[in-house]
């Protein structure tokens, strides 16, 4: 038993970290991931990790990628692509998956919606709060038919698609309310609904990883500022009122990172504990990251809550990612019920 990164995993971490630094210095401050940046990310091979056809496992590697991308606020679309789009499209028999893995095609995952019906190849329905790319090439949608989930793919530029953009808190995300009216779509696969459960678990795990990256970057940025900002004749980082909240958050983050690795191993080994652990890691990562980025922002004083400094983007991202795929508030309750059942069994 060990939770150490292997040498290959450490090189992957360094590779993605390099990419992230490069991206962070050259990126558009508005925060949207351009199609070109996405292609370069895909060029690192990060989506091959999620392709069940290519190889089994790879979950620990995905966690490493998500955490590193989180540090430069580039994680928003990665988790959904790796958890849903790649595994579900790889079920298709023809070559739909190849352009996704190469980063040439950006597919947004809409999940299950309301009033979803299909007639032949025409799909209608409503999907709210769909996190996606800007621009997006296609949508991947779920139609629930009893115990079966039909996975549909539709081109985003079809005239039957209406995507109403919402006002995103996170500047790197594009959330839309999606409406399909007899939109020509392509049936990718029909799978038992339980098959989506592992994707849900993976999404929670990867967003938790991203949150850890986001929060640690914010805490470290705040610590750098606390070393140079002087008040009452000393750097503010020498005051425990400033340093202890940052250190406390760092300790919490290290704890969630341990849980992250443990959960990744359990998902990879497909154990019975994986379900509860994936709830726990997302719930805790969300709560810890929102608090940590808030503390980081506070450390910057007045400039922290202006657009003069980018620290607010970390807090925005943490709040948005906590709200995605089950917040700490929702999952905490669900985990409580499951823990009660499990502990008294």
């Amino acid at each position, binding site marked *: *038993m060990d939770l150490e*990164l292997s040498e290959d995993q450490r090189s992957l971490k360094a590779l993605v970290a390099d990419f992230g630094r490069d991206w962070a210095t050259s990126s558009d401050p508005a925060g949207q991931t351009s199609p070109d940046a996405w292609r370069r990310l895909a060029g690192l091979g990060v989506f091959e990790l999620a392709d069940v056809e290519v190889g089994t496992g790879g979950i620990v590697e995905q966690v490493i990628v998500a955490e590193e991308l989180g540090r430069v606020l580039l994680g928003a679309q990665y988790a959904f692509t790796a958890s849903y789009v790649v595994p579900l499209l790889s079920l298709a028999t023809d070559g739909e998956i190849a352009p996704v893995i190469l980063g040439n095609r950006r597919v947004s995952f809409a999940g299950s919606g309301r009033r979803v019906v299909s007639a032949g190849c025409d799909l209608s329905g409503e999907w709210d709060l769909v996190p996606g790319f800007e621009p997006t090439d296609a949508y991947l949608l779920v139609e629930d038919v009893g115990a079966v989930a039909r996975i549909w793919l539709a081109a985003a530029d079809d005239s039957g698609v209406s995507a109403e953009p919402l006002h995103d808190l996170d500047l790197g995300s594009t959330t839309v309310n999606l409406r399909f009216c007899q939109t020509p779509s392509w049936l990718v696969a029909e799978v038992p609904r339980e098959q989506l459960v592992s994707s849900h678990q993976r999404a929670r795990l990867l967003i938790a990883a991203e949150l850890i990256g986001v929060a640690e970057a914010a805490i470290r940025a705040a610590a750098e500022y606390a070393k140079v900002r002087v008040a009452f004749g000393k*750097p503010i*980082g020498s005051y425990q009122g400033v340093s*202890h909240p940052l*250190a406390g958050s760092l300790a919490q983050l290290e704890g969630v990172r341990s849980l992250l690795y443990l959960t*990744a191993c359990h998902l990879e080994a497909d154990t019975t504990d994986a379900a509860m652990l994936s709830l726990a890691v997302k719930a*805790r990562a969300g709560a810890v990251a929102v608090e940590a980025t808030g503390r980081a922002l506070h450390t910057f004083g007045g400039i922290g809550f202006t657009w003069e400094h980018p620290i607010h983007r970390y807090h925005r991202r943490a709040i948005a990612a906590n709200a995605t795929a089950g917040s700490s508030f929702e999952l905490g309750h669900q985990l409580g019920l499951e823990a009660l059942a499990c502990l008294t069994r």
Partner: protein
Amino acid sequence: MRIEDTVEEAAYRNRVREWIATEGRDQWPTAAGRESAEERHWVQALQGAGLVGVTWPETYGGQGLSPGHEAIVAAELAEAGMPIPTSMGVGLNMVGPALLVHGSPEQQRQLLPAILSGAAVWCEGFSEPDAGSDLAAIRTRATSQPDGSYRVSGAKVWCSFAHASDWCLLLARTGAREHGSRAITCFLVPMTSPGVSVRPLRQITGESEFNEVFFDEVELPSSAVLDGPGRGWAVAMTTLFYERSRYHDQLAGFAVNLSGLARRVAADPKLRDDARVLERLAGAWTDLQIVRATMLRLGQERDPGGTTTAAGLALKLLWTGAIEGLTSLALDVLGPMAAVESSDETVDGHSWQRELFLAQMWAVAGGSTEIARSVLAEQSLGLPRSR
């Protein structure tokens, strides 16, 4: 990264389990008659089975195995509720490892086998009435004599199990106060030395595990110095590193207590439908997994010579937070019963109130929460010293 044992580890785990279930069960001191002699006997039995000093060299009675094997033994003993007694843990888990790092070959030969056989119980003589968090401010003084020997005078406090100990790992000042931690030397002191006296202290739990220890002109040979004059601070840091990195037994107790609490909640409709209770129960379950996983992550990190990683420094804070969360939930759930101590609720039949008091102890033991945060701020975030 893997959660499964290797084939070799699995076979080792099975052997450990088998011993625990058979011979171990027979030799485990019953709760009613537990006292120092029985605890020593238990350590002796463990040594017979090769379950103490797992990573120590074979020349000193150890097994020469990996930290992974040690983790297996610790986890299995804890799981069976048959841990290394706390009194023996000071020698086995803190002083022994420090001797392996800092001791001379003669000191190791002389002292390590007796720790493994249960013949020697150790205590720490670190804190003083006027030096706790600021350990470098200790006043106990060791004055060197013309013949190279030392005379030690001073008072130590919070010395766990000193009343039952054979040896003390003592920190004393051998240079000027202005030189702070650079003028501290560590001594290996037999508790039977003339001039050593012990006064037990009653703790908040009602038990007397703590002591004050007084040194009045205690004579020590130069061979009692560990790792050279002025090297005491390094020894103390190693010892504290080990003190802060092992919570196997505590975690096993935590898991039992958490299940007990869950049963109480499940039996009461008002509690089991209360969202606040469920959320805090989820938090306690998550804390348990987090501390477990962090210990697993640190499993290979056994060299205190280097800088301790952020995860290593965080572990103490995580454990303290976990135990505080669980015990405060338990007291809230008890309602009016929280004012009355009753037994058989928790592991070993102790009261929840005792567990709560122990949580408060953990927030101070091995360096207070505040000191841990300061060290983390300095070492892992590079922030300036606050003192």
